[in-house]
């Protein structure tokens, strides 16, 4: 599904956001990407949905080297990837329905089809009754669920989430993670960047750890304490 081979990303000559990262994420996997602030988590995700190109190395998503994708092809690639952001990134002047149906609207799908798809995904996230509400009328948790609905409306094979629970309380965070699990069970590969170690521990999924731009695969035990995780988070997989 995703293969990174010796990927580096530099901002200027002296800032190495990612250094020589090599890893593979299989189709249908649920993976956490963790690490302290500034470790390179967001950069990692930005490279995966081609918000930025890598400085060097190869990134294969569904067998396609997205590092060399021509600019005209990037929008089409992005439609095959769902992305959820910490700050939701909803368009304030558009209703929940319009936010979700945006790409379908651009593509000229009939209004009825847009509504049918939006209703389906909103039902999955439990917000079908808020179709005509505006983002400012919703709580943080609801806004994030709308963002998730928008991310999955095109039925992507890959869902990326950048600190999706960063602005939410623990109960809402749990709820959002349950949604990601449901999406993953339906076959979508899910990659969640977070530094919420409690959440990672409870979920018991594979973890990719980043530290100062370098990556190590680390198993995170359910019984590990947050302190232990922080002190020794990068245990190599056996």
């Amino acid at each position: 599904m995703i293969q990174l081979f010796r990927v580096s990303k530099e901002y200027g000559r002296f800032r190495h956001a990612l250094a020589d990262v090599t890893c593979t994420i299989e189709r249908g996997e649920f993976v956490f990407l963790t690490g302290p602030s500034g470790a390179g988590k967001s950069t990692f995700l930005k490279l995966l949905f081609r918000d930025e190109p890598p400085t060097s190395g190869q990134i294969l998503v569904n067998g396609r080297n997205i590092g060399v994708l021509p600019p005209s092809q990037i929008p089409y690639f992005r439609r095959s990837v769902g992305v959820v952001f910490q700050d939701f990134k909803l368009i304030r002047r558009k209703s929940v329905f319009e936010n979700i149906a945006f790409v379908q609207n651009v593509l000229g799908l009939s209004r009825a089809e847009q509504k049918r798809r939006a209703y389906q995904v909103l039902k999955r996230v439990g917000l079908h009754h808020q179709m005509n509400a505006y983002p400012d009328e919703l709580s943080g948790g609801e806004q994030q669920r709308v963002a998730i609905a928008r991310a999955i409306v095109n039925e992507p094979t890959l869902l990326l989430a950048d600190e999706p629970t960063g602005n939410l309380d623990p109960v809402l965070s749990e709820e959002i993670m349950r949604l990601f699990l449901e999406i993953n069970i339906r076959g979508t590969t899910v990659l969640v960047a977070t530094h919420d170690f409690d959440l990672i521990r409870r979920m018991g999924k594979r973890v990719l750890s980043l530290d100062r731009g370098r990556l190590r695969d680390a198993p995170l035990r359910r019984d590990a304490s947050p302190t232990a995780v922080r002190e020794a988070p990068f245990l190599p997989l056996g």
Partner: protein
Amino acid sequence: MVKPRYIFGEAWSIARSGARQTLLAIGLIALSLYVPALFALLSKNLGRLSTDAETPAAVITLDPAADGRGIARRLADDSRVREIRIVSSDAALARFRRAYPELGAALGDLKEAPFPPTIEVRMRPSAGPGAGTAVAAAARSWPGVEIAESEEEIGRRFSDGVRIVRAAGLALGGVLVLAAILSVASAIRLALDLHRDEIEIMRLMGATETAVRAPFWLHATGEGLAGGALALVLLYATYRLGLNYLARSPHPVLSMFWGSFLDWRAVTLMPLIGAAAGLFGSMISLTRRT
């Protein structure tokens, strides 16, 4: 392929979300097009008065009791003269009404004919410059002739004047259309600032550059079109105001300068220039990096 329904919907949404900026841009474009259009209107009216091949080289104004035919026969004896035309008071009034239909009505109430009878003299091309002046000078001493004026020099100077007004209008028009383009570009930049986050989100969600830009192009083109149309309305209002004023208090010179409105081609062109300015302004402000 971006669907037109989406482009129109988004353009309308952009206009509504920044209504004040939209109105400001329309006003600026209207102002930028109004001034050169006013020059075009003046130039058109002045142009009607300028000389051409059919303009008489000399005009002999007769005493109402004079023997017009006799004077005409005398003028026709000159071998340099190509054509003699006697214009009676009634014919002069009819001609005025044809040329200035809006002002002709104002003269309807007069009991006496406002224009004296005249003889228009046209020279042969072989007569050379100054022939009209010579004929007018000779006729001045004839009985029954009140005034004899050569139109040659006046006509030449008048044509030069019209050319200067046209050139000034064109230059000013160019500058102001450029200003209109920059105004639209600024207005679009303002709209972009208002929608910068949205544009970023749209791109992240997989919107193509055309899907991002086309609504702004359409929005700006619409602003230009509306600005051009508003300038046209303002110009017509100015023209009607001028006519009403001149109908109430006729002026011998101003009345001639303010006789007709722009033709349909110029009228169509104004909103189109506005639309083109809008489209161009939006294109220079919307780059891949914005």
